[in-house]
């Protein structure tokens, strides 16, 4: 194109004093930003395709590289920001829907950051997690309404299928196809070592990973990819995906270019065919239909596995959750609007859905008001960024959280939000063999284990400070929370008091 209406977003800065011309950057950039000019014996760069994934920066042995924002600016305008203008130019070029990846990056309020935790002073001792037992084990699943007794008077301990977690953290659904096999292996191995669960996402389960079945949640989504008897039987639980926080109300589309042999086998679709997940499940147009699928899956798995229903956090999420709690589902997963994705229309990602904090607070309260909180466990997702977010989520009423983006960060993701290009330089959101091999699961799984261990330690520290030595005593314990800088209405929705009260 002779006219460039918009400019590269980033600038490559190379410190010539530090650069030793090892060419690692050139060898590692799938976007071909760097190259070596043999004739001139210099490293050169073309930032046009740079996505600021930081791979080159990370691998440079002399820290000679920096990627910065392109200082080139359009004339400043508080209404028409440079990004909005650029998007208009792009659409004028392509005539297409804008695509993005990972979670909503816009400056909406982050409620986690407006909630503060309590700690014990004087009247009640903090507990030192290094000296005293500190428990983070949780169970997910339906609880019986009443204790039943055997004929001999002993307690009947039979219970609905349950997931047992060593710590209230699970890895979110990310399909094989949207992420690489090595990323999946890392998640699966980490979940197994940690005593938690990872989630297949909607892409089926690769045969190599059946051995991780006891720590696997298998997902059934609207495309029904890779769903068959063995798949359902292998998982520890089955999740029906009704929606996703990053793109509520729309389906998914994995381009045929990514449907290579293994993925085609795993998804049970022809090689090279686009994998399209419809917006709705075409057998679920109502809550009654959902109940049918829940029970179909229970039948298919002989009532041995808990059924999870995952929904996106939307405006009437509390009422929807109430319906799901009465549908026979054992666990409700709610995904907030900051949840990640491998690809979503930008406008949907950035403008649809509600924050998980508010959704969680209203769902938990609604279920309690209706006396059905014990019918289901509540798992929340959609940008749980730290152990503090986990603690706040549990105190608001969640049984556990799903982490997706944080897990990917542990694997190297730098949130360049270009998953949809399939050229992930970190070997995560790609199927190109030379890129996939960049994620060695041996390293990946250990980093995930480290992350969750670290969070678990921190959760225990925070619990100990509150004088709580078992996570169940934190769940729904909103007295441990105070809002800061929140309006009356926000406090009311969150069910917490303001700091100082």
């Amino acid at each position, binding site marked *: 194109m002779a006219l460039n209406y918009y400019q590269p977003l980033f600038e490559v800065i190379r410190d010539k004093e530090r650069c030793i011309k090892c060419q690692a950057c050139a*060898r*590692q950039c799938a976007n071909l930003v760097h190259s070596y000019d043999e004739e001139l014996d210099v490293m050169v760069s073309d930032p046009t395709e740079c996505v600021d994934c930081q791979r080159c920066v990370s*691998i440079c*042995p002399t820290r000679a590289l920096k990627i910065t924002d392109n200082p080139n600016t359009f004339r400043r305008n508080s209404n028409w920001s440079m990004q909005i203008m650029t998007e208009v130019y792009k659409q004028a070029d392509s005539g297409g829907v804008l695509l993005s990846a990972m979670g909503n990056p816009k400056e909406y309020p982050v409620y986690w950051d407006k909630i503060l935790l309590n700690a014990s002073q004087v009247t009640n001792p903090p507990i030192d997690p290094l000296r005293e037992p500190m428990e983070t084990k949780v169970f997910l699943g339906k609880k019986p309404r009443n204790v039943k007794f055997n004929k001999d008077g002993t307690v009947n301990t039979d219970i609905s299928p349950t997931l047992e977690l060593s710590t209230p953290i699970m890895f979110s659904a990310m399909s094989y196809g949207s992420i690489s096999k090595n990323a999946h292996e890392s998640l699966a191995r980490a979940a197994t070592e940690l005593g938690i669960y990872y989630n297949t996402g909607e892409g089926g389960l690769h045969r190599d990973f059946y051995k991780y079945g006891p720590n696997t949640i298998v997902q059934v989504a609207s495309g029904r990819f890779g769903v068959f008897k063995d798949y359902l039987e292998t998982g520890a639980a089955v999740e029906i995906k009704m929606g996703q926080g990053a793109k509520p109300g729309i389906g998914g589309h994995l381009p045929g270019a990514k449907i290579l042999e293994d993925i085609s086998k795993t998804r049970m679709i022809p090689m090279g065919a686009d994998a399209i997940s419809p917006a709705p499940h075409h057998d679920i147009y109502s809550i009654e239909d959902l109940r049918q699928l829940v029970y179909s899956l229970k039948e298919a798995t002989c009532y041995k596995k808990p059924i999870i229903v995952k929904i996106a956090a939307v405006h009437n999420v509390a009422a929807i959750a109430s319906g799901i709690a009465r549908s026979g589902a054992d666990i409700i997963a709610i995904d907030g609007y900051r949840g990640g994705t491998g690809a979503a229309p930008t406008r949907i990602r950035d403008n649809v859905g509600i924050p998980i904090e508010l959704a969680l607070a209203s769902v938990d309260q609604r279920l309690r008001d209706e006396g059905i909180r014990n019918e289901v466990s509540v798992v929340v997702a959609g940008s749980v960024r730290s152990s503090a977010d986990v603690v706040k989520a549990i105190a608001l009423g969640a049984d556990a959280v799903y982490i997706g983006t944080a897990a990917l960060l542990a694997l190297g993701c730098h949130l360049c939000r270009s998953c949809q290009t399939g050229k992930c330089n970190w070997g995560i959101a790609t199927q190109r063999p030379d890129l996939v091999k960049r994620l060695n699961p041996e390293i990946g799984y250990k980093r995930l284990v480290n992350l969750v261990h670290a969070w678990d330690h921190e959760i225990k520290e925070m619990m100990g400070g509150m004088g709580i030595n078992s996570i169940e005593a934190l769940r729904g314990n909103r007295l441990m929370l105070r809002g800061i800088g929140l309006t009356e209405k926000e406090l009311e929705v969150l069910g917490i008091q303001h700091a100082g009260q």
Partner: protein
Amino acid sequence: MKKVYVNEDWCLACHLCEYYCAAANSGAPNMIKAFAGGKKPIPRIKVEEGSGISFAVQCRHCDEPLCVKGCITGALSVKDGVISCDESRCVGCYTCVMSCPYGCIVISEDSKVIQKCDLCVKNNNGDPACVKGCPNKAIVLEER
């Protein structure tokens, strides 16, 4: 004994092992200085690549080392399982180059002596620099 092993499944062909090796054995205090002014110190590890495969090759520290057995001067010797070269005794005859089945004997820049991997026992690096520098655990130091 711990040895260096490579796993070609994880080799990214980034060639960083070569640079870390060269720098560690260059005598320079850091990598920038090792390569300053266009210097190209020679690594004792070599990444081979072709048709989508890549892997690093360096001394296997064989139990029956043909290089040591064939050395005409006694410059090559085995200590605690590590084969190293006393460059002051090497005359650059290259008998070891002829003997090594892995091609892991490297000829010095001035062609006067040979150089080889000694698992970084001599250069104060502590651990083999290639292992430390490999970004993807394609090179590991392990007991097997």
